[in-house]
C-alpha cells in the first residue's frame, strides 16, 4: 500500500468511526437522559410498587414461556428449512418473516380474529373451558407471534453451518436420524439456537402493539408504561421505564455471558 492510499484509508476509517459514534450516541443519549431524569429514591419507590413488580414478573415469565413453548416446534422446523428442499420453500421462508414486517398492532388484530371468542381457535378453547384473550395465554400467543421469526432464522443459520458430512458420519456409525439430530446437529448449532432463543425472548418481552390488543389486562410492563404515560404523564411513566430497562439489561448481559461460555464448547 502506498503512503497516500494508506492516508486515504485512514481518513475513511476515521470518518466511519465518527459516523458510528453518532449512531451510538443516538441510541445511548435517550437512555442516559431517561436515567438522569429520575432520582434514586424515585426509582426505589417505583420498584417497591406491587403493580410494577407483578407486571415485570408477568412480562418476564410470559415471554419466557412463549419462547420455550414455541421452540419445541420451531427448532425442528428450522432444521427442516436448513436441510430439506421442498416445493414453495421460498414462500414458506417469506411467510416466516411476515410478523417482522407487518405493524404489530395489525398483527394483534389479525391474531385476535383467530383467538377471540368468535375465532376458530378461540371457539375451540372456549368449548374446553378457557379463553385465549385477556389473560396470560393471550399475552404468550401475541408475544410468540411477533418474535418467532427471530428464533427460526437464527436456528436455521446455525443448522446450515453444521457440515452435513458430520451427520452422514453419525448415521454411518449406527445412530438413528433422531439421535443424529439430538447429539450432533443440535449441539453443533447450539450457539445460534441459544442466541435465537435470547432474541426471541427479548423481542417478546418488549412487545407492546400486539399484546395491548389481545390483553390490556393483566398488564405487561410495556402496557403499564403506556398507561401511566397516558393517565398521569411523562414523570410517572419514567420510573417504571427505568426499572424495566434495568432488569432487561441485567438479564441480557447475564445471558450473553452464559452464551459466551458455551461458544468454546467446540474447542
Amino acid at each position, binding site marked *: 500500500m502506498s503512503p497516500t492510499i494508506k492516508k486515504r484509508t485512514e481518513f475513511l476509517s476515521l470518518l466511519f468511526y465518527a459516523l458510528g459514534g453518532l449512531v451510538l450516541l443516538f441510541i445511548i443519549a435517550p437512555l442516559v437522559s431517561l436515567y438522569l431524569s429520575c432520582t434514586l429514591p424515585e426509582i426505589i419507590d417505583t420498584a417497591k410498587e406491587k403493580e410494577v413488580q407483578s407486571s415485570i414478573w408477568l412480562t418476564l415469565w410470559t415471554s419466557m414461556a412463549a419462547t420455550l413453548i414455541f421452540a419445541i416446534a420451531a427448532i425442528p422446523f428450522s432444521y427442516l428449512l436448513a436441510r430439506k428442499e421442498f416445493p414453495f420453500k421460498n414462500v414458506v421462508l417469506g411467510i416466516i418473516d411476515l410478523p417482522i414486517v407487518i405493524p404489530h398492532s395489525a398483527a394483534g388484530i389479525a391474531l385476535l380474529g383467530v383467538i377471540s371468542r368468535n375465532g376458530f381457535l378461540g371457539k375451540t378453547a372456549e368449548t374446553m373451558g378457557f379463553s385465549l384473550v385477556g389473560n396470560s395465554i393471550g399475552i404468550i400467543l401475541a408475544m410468540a407471534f411477533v418474535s418467532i421469526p427471530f428464533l427460526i432464522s437464527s436456528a436455521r443459520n446455525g443448522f446450515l453451518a453444521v457440515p452435513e458430512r458430520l451427520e452422514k*458420519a453419525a448415521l454411518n456409525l*449406527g445412530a438413528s436420524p433422531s*439421535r443424529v439430530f439430538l447429539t450432533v446437529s443440535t449441539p453443533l448449532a447450539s450457539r445460534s439456537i441459544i442466541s435465537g432463543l435470547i432474541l426471541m425472548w427479548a423481542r417478546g418481552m418488549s412487545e407492546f402493539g400486539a399484546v395491548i390488543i389481545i390483553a390490556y389486562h393483566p398488564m405487561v410492563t410495556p402496557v403499564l408504561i403506556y398507561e401511566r404515560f397516558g393517565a398521569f404523564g411523562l414523570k410517572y411513566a419514567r420510573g417504571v421505564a427505568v426499572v424495566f430497562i434495568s432488569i432487561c439489561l441485567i438479564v441480557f448481559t447475564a445471558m450473553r455471558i452464559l452464551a459466551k461460555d458455551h461458544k468454546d464448547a*467446540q474447542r
Partner: protein
Amino acid sequence: MLSVKEISKAFDNKKIIKDVSFDVNEGQYFVLLGSSGVGKSLLFEIIAGIIDPDNGMIMLDGTDITHKKIQKRNIGLVFQDNVLFPHTTVYENVAYPLKSRKVQHSDIHKRVTSLADDFGFKHLFDRKPLTLSGGESQRVSLARAVASEPKCLLLDEPLSSLDASSRPEIRALLRKMNGRGQTIVHITHDYTEAVSVGTHIAVLESGTIAQVGMIDDIFQRPKSEFIARFIGIRNFFRGHLQGIKVPDSNLREFTTADGMTFSVLVDSNGGNGYVMIRSEDVTVSGAMARSSARNQFEGTIADIVRAGPGMEVILNIGRDKPVNIASMVTSESTKELSLSIGKKVWVSFKASAAKYIED
C-alpha cells in the same frame, strides 16, 4: 462378502458411475485406484447407504442391502477429511457408535479402552478433536469406525490428508487391522499407496472398473495404457507382433501403432497386443554404442523432470510424428552427459526388457 453389482449413478443426466461391479472377499484388503473426480467417494457413499444408486445392487454376506437404512448396514466408513465430532471428547467420539447401538455402559468403557490401547490414543481421551494432530485424529477415526465391529470397513483416501511423517504409522495400523481379519476397501489415487497396503486392486477409469485383480496381476498385465500409466509404467505401446521368422529363435519384431519397430524377446506366434518397457530399463547415451541392446534409436530430449530419486528424461524417437519414450536416469548422468531439452541423443533398451502382452 461385499458384492457390488452393476451400480450406476447419474447427476444432472451425467453418468458419474457406470455399471460398477466388484467382489470383495472376507479378509481382503481391496484397493480402488482411480484419479480424482471419477466418482470414487460417490461409490462409497452408495455402498454405505448415504446416497441411493440409480441402478444396481449391493450385497453383504449374501443379503441385499441396497435399500437398507444407512444406520443398519454395519459398514464402517472413514471419510477423507476428518469428521470427528468437534463438540465432544475423543472418548465420546469412539463411544458414539456403541451408544447408538445401545451397548451397556460398562461394556462401552471396556471396548473404548481396549481400542485406545490398541490404536494408541489412551492419553487423548479428554481432548477435543480440533486439538489433535492429523495422525492422532486418523487413529481415533479408525477406532471409532471399527468400534462396533463393522463387517466391512470403507476408507476414503485415509492417508492423503496426513503429513508425510505420520503416513507410515497409519499404513502400518491399516495392515495390522487387515491382518486381524478386518475386511477393508480403500480408495486412493496413489498407486504406491495401493501397493503398500492392498492385496487386491480395482482400477477405476471414467466411472467404470477398467481392471480388477491381485496387485501382481495388474502390475504384470495392465489391460490398457491408462492403467499402465496409472500404476507408474511410463512406456506402453500398442501394436502387432510378427510371427516366427527365424526358426528356433524367440526374437520377434513388434510394430507399434505409430509405425515404430521394436525387437522383442518372446515365445509367441504373434498377434495383436502391447509392449511395456520400464523406464529404468531404457538407457540414454551420447552416441550409438555397440552393445547387446537390440533396440537403438536416435531421438531428441523433449523434457526432463525430477521423478522420485532420479530424473525422468522424455525422449522423442519418432520419425514422422512424435513417439515418446521415458528413461529413468540418475541426476549424475544427466550432468555428465549434459542432457538438456532439445539435445540429440541415442536411446537403447534390450529386447528382453520389452515385455509383450497379448490382447
